[in-house]
């Protein structure tokens, strides 16, 4: 999912920085509308670090294991802070572990961050469906789980789709149309089980947070 340096044309990398700049500007504008935006900076920062660390947790799928992307969960918990958080997380990934890259930081942030913002809005629909009642109620929990699943699987699904389209259409390779089509289908199909896994994991985490610290899920 982290597109590395050297693979995309410079124009695409620059366009990635432009879209990231626009999405960051929009997110910061929404954040600054809050009554005391500075109050939430430490919270968003520590949660950014926590998400970064949580993505190191490996889910064993014998004979291997996978780590989750968690961009849908990030959107559900951090709201408009999700985009800056993802940008910072990817910056750390690039400079500390050489995952992703400096020229592709903008592209990667767009690919992961825009679906996170969409996941935030999907998760907020939960408030439309269950307006009243105790958060411990059965329907409340069911809908939290359902929208958690949709946010998690949708976040990863849209990111994977964006990354695949970008790679296939811009990589400077002389692939023929048949090979190109086959690789898009193969990679898209390979991501379906991961989407389900990400969705279930996100639903379980939001249910845990609902039980232990419901204010973390409040807007």
């Amino acid at each position: 999912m982290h597109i590395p340096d050297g693979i995309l044309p410079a124009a695409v990398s620059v366009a990635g920085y432009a879209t990231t700049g626009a999405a960051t500007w929009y997110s910061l504008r929404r954040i600054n509308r809050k009554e005391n935006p500075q109050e939430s900076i430490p919270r968003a920062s520590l949660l950014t670090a926590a998400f970064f660390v949580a993505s190191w947790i490996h889910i064993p799928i014998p004979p291997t294991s996978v780590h989750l992307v968690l961009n849908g969960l990030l959107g559900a918990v951090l709201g408009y802070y999700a985009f800056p958080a993802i940008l910072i997380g990817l910056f750390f990934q690039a400079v500390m572990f050489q995952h992703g890259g400096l020229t592709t930081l903008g592209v990667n942030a767009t690919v992961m961050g825009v679906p996170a913002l969409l996941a935030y809005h999907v998760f907020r629909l939960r408030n439309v469906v269950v307006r009243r009642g105790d958060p411990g109620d059965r329907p409340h929990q069911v809908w939290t789980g359902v929208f958690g699943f949709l946010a998690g699987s949708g976040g990863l699904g849209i990111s994977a789709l964006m990354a695949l389209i970008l790679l296939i259409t811009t990589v400077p390779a002389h692939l023929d149309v048949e090979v190109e089509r086959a690789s898009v289908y193969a990679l898209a199909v390979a991501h379906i089980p991961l989407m389900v896994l990400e969705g279930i994991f996100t639903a379980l985490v939001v249910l845990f947070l609902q039980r232990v610290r419901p204010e973390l899920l409040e807007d």
Partner: protein
Amino acid sequence: MKLGLDEHAHLDSPLHHWETRYKLVGLMVLIFAFSFVQDLRLLPAMLVVTFALYSVSRLPLSYLLTRLRAPGFFLLIVAVLLPFLSGSTVILRIGSLALRQEGCLDLLLIVTKFVSILTTGLVLFGTAPFLAIIKAMRALGLPPVLADMTLLSYRYLYEIGDDLETMETAMGLRGFRARRSGRGGHKAMPLLGVLASLAGTILVRSYEQSERVYKAMVLRGYGHSPRPRDEFQACPRDVVGLGGVLVLAAGFVAAEIFFRRFGG
């Protein structure tokens, strides 16, 4: 847990002494100039510039080799797929597999650009403390919210990483073995439930800690005192260095444009 980002930030080299703002602008422009290159004839020059920069920086070779190991998996996939899938000019046939010329050239271009950009990035982030780089970004116009979030996240990343290690050790001591799933181990859903609780606990603990951190920051004047002025001061040598690197970057872009138009 140590991520070792500032491991070699205090060595003595011209690149370590280069003022961070100028270094950031110069090397980022050079990195983008490298990513602009598509003509194979420019690759040797790119490698020469990259490794000249790395040797001037006096960063140890082991540092570069360790950092190149992490993305090696990506390189391996590209190296295996491209020469056999991309292009139409077959240069060698091994059974049903055909080695194609265009694929091999694409591979050469991608790998060289990847190594050059990554090495230049290592020079940029390995020759100055991370804190100084974020301060330089702030001086160059990074929004304060992003700068504060980056610094705070970096500060607590180590602590939260240690928290995760402690919790995993505690879970292990109580008999939890994530890798023993499947036969004789945990069933899939309860296993996911435990790992989701682990991730959730990391989030809850960070959230609770952030409330204490915010109060401590407010007590020290956060949000009320004026922001400290940036302490950067450039000397003529820094400006000359920036000029030199910008000319180099412009040279790569100009040569690429020339080869595209007239190079055949």
